[in-house]
C-alpha cells in the first residue's frame, strides 16, 4: 500500500477534526474533535514506522527500525489520557460556574 494513501486518509481525518473545532460551540464536541486529530496523527506515525521498517528489511538492516515511532504513539496515548481527565474536569467546573458549556462564554477570560 503506497504511503500516500495513508497520508491522504490521515489528512482528511485531521481536517474533519479542524472543521469540527471551527464550527461547533459545544465544548465537549470541540474536545472530541481534538481527540480525533490526535488519533489521525497517531495512525500516520504508525504508518511511517512501518514504511521505514519495510525499507530497512529490504536492505537487510537491523530488525527494530521504526520501533521508536510506536513507542512515541504509546506516549501520545498516555498524555492524551491525562489531558482528557484534566480537560473534562475544567469543563465540569465551567458548567458549574456558568450553567452552560458554550465556548463563547470563555471569552470573559479576557477581562
Amino acid at each position, binding site marked *: 500500500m503506497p504511503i500516500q494513501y495513508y497520508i491522504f486518509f490521515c489528512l482528511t481525518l485531521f481536517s*474533519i477534526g479542524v472543521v469540527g473545532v471551527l464550527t461547533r460551540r459545544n465544548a465537549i464536541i470541540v474536545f472530541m474533535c481534538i481527540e480525533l486529530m490526535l488519533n489521525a496523527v497517531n*495512525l500516520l506515525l504508525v504508518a511511517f514506522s512501518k514504511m521505514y521498517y519495510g525499507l530497512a528489511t529490504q536492505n537487510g538492516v537491523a530488525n527494530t527500525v521504526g520501533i521508536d515511532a510506536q513507542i512515541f504513539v504509546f506516549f501520545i496515548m*498516555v*498524555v492524551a489520557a491525562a489531558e482528557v481527565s484534566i480537560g473534562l474536569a475544567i469543563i465540569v467546573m465551567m458548567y458549574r460556574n456558568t450553567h452552560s458549556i458554550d465556548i463563547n462564554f470563555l471569552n470573559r477570560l479576557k477581562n
Partner: protein
Amino acid sequence: MNVLEILFYALSAFALVSAIMVLISKNPIHSVLWLILVFFAISGHYILLNAQFLAIVNIIVYAGAIMVLFLFVIMLINVKKDSEPQKHLYVKFIGVITGGSFLTLLIALVKQALPLVGKNVLLKEGTIGLIHPLGKALFNDYVVPFEISSVLFLSAMVGAVLIGKK
C-alpha cells in the same frame, strides 16, 4: 485488488463516515458513540499494519476509558438539546471552507513530494508492533520517560480532583 486493499478502503470509508457523523449529530451522546466507531476503525487500521499492541491499547484507553469519561460528563451535565447554541451560518461556512482549503493544500503538497514516491507501507507483516519488541524497547531505552509518565498520571489525578472539588 487483493483483500488487504479492500480492508484498507473499507476501514477508511467507515472511519471517515463516522467522523463526519460526529460533527453533524445534534445530540452529544450520538457524537460520542460515532467517535467510538472511529476509534474502532483506527484500531482496525493498526491491526492491518500489524501493530497489535497499539490496537489493543487504542481500544482499552480510547474506546474504553476516555469515551466512557466523555459519556459520564455528558450525562452529568445534562445539556438540553434544543438550547444548544449554534454558530452563525456564515461562521460555519467559513469553517468548512477553511478546513477544505487546508486539506486541498496539504494533499497537493503530498502529491508533489518526490521523497514519498514509490515508498510502500508494509501491511500484515513485520514484528515491531508485537508486544515482545515493544516491551524490550520500552523497558531498556525508554524506561525514564515511562517512569516520568507515571508521575504525569499522578499529577493529572491530583489536578482533576482539585479542579473537580471546587
